[in-house]
């Protein structure tokens, strides 16, 4: 496959970036999108041009590090995949592909296609944990009865890998789906009940502080989410938030 790539280049956080056009040739349709970028970078190095910086780690859809807005969609045109799981067979020979970083005030570009996602870390630090001591005297898992449905719901929410596709794709750059998943994974389990009220209040407050937008319920986030996190978790977070706001004693 021969392709024309329009890639966002930006030297650092402060400088203004822009789209650069690169041609790549002889790409296998079986190559992953990141492998195609590797080939492009090899070409750029040979030409004496600085290679394009982009994020990746596991390259098997687990870590949530790769984060590219490809041809107008988070993680590209395929569904339920991260960028590393996207294959070139999803594109046509001769196609022009736009490759941009996530766009959000709360996730500024650091360099080229890499964004600063520490806002997600700060949201997690504000409440996305349980203070149950799990070292030593660990209880048998079956000693704590949990309804199957709640276990499934918590597990589905915990599938969130924090890639940020929900923020990138939301027209308001809202982080509601991410925060909702992190709130819900504990809210459905008994271990999460102790800090449940403070957790949702703190995490929503931190989300607002970071400058993410509001939810308009377009549902775009759940369509683009590589782990298919449902927006029903946003409703769950809203319920948790309302309940905590009305009854929290702190």
């Amino acid at each position: 496959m021969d392709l024309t790539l329009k890639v966002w280049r930006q030297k650092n956080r402060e400088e203004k970036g822009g789209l650069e056009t690169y041609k790549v040739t002889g790409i296998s349709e079986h190559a992953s999108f990141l492998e195609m970028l590797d080939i492009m970078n090899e070409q750029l190095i040979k030409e004496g041009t600085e290679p394009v910086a982009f994020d990746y780690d596991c390259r098997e859809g687990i870590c949530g590090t790769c984060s590219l807005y490809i041809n107008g969609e988070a993680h590209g045109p395929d569904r339920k995949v991260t960028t590393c799981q996207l294959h070139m067979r999803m594109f046509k020979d001769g196609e022009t592909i736009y490759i941009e970083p996530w766009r959000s005030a709360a996730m500024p570009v650091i360099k080229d296609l890499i964004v600063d996602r520490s806002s997600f870390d700060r949201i997690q630090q504000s409440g996305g944990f349980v203070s149950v001591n799990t070292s030593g005297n660990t209880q048998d898992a079956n000693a704590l009865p949990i309804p199957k449905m709640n276990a499934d719901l918590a597990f589905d929410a915990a599938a969130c890998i924090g890639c940020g596709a929900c923020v990138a794709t939301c027209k308001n750059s809202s982080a509601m789906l991410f925060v909702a998943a992190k709130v819900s994974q504990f809210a459905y389990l008994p271990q999460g009940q102790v800090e449940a009220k403070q957790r949702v209040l703190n995490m929503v407050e931190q989300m607002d502080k970071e400058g993410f937008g509001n939810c308009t319920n377009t549902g775009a986030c759940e369509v683009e989410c590589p782990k298919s996190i449902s927006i029903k978790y946003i409703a769950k977070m809203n319920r948790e938030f309302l309940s905590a706001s009305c009854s929290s004693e702190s």
Partner: protein
Amino acid sequence: MSNGLSNSSVGRKVLMALSGFFLLFFLMQHFVINLFSVISADLFNEISHFMGTNGLIQFVLQPILIFGFLFHLAMGMYLERKNSAARPIKYAMDKPSENSNWMSRNMLITGIMVMLFLGLHFYDFWLPEIKTKFIEGDWSGLNNGEFRYWEELHHKFQDIIRVSIYCVAFIFLGLHLSHGFQSAFQSAGFNHNKYTPIIKKLATLYAIIIPFGFIFIALFHYFTQN
């Protein structure tokens, strides 16, 4: 420490949803009353006179309605401003239609169109009522010894341009309602495997029946002019 309900993004959306529910209810009763103008002029006059002169409706519910509408409008504008600031640099290539529908993405546009229409609607009906009742002090509802309400309504819809504006505005209202109705439930925290699909169907029905019902009423009066 929490910011409180009205100072948080989730809380604001809940308040937006609650004001939306209130306006949905108001719109339904407005439609039902207007429908009487098609069925019986006398019945429409009786109901209009009751609504226009009842103390509870005029001095309690009407101010609540005005507040509810202004609140919904102001909050919508405020949220849109925050949302716009959350993405200062837009994508060079964006395909939002791949993952969401037009109505859900353009609530501001459809909302502004409804608001502009309300300017005309207030000029046509609400301001003359205020003038008659509160400035001239005439609470009789009579004109030449007969109830004036049906006659005034009927008279307004003789102009094709006005009728056309009303019809176009009702289509925008329908687009706004088609997303707003079901979105309000989600914002308020209501999402149920069994009932949410039913709510979405109800939302579609509501967004068709109410606006097209209003269009029918406007056209009925236009085509039955003497």
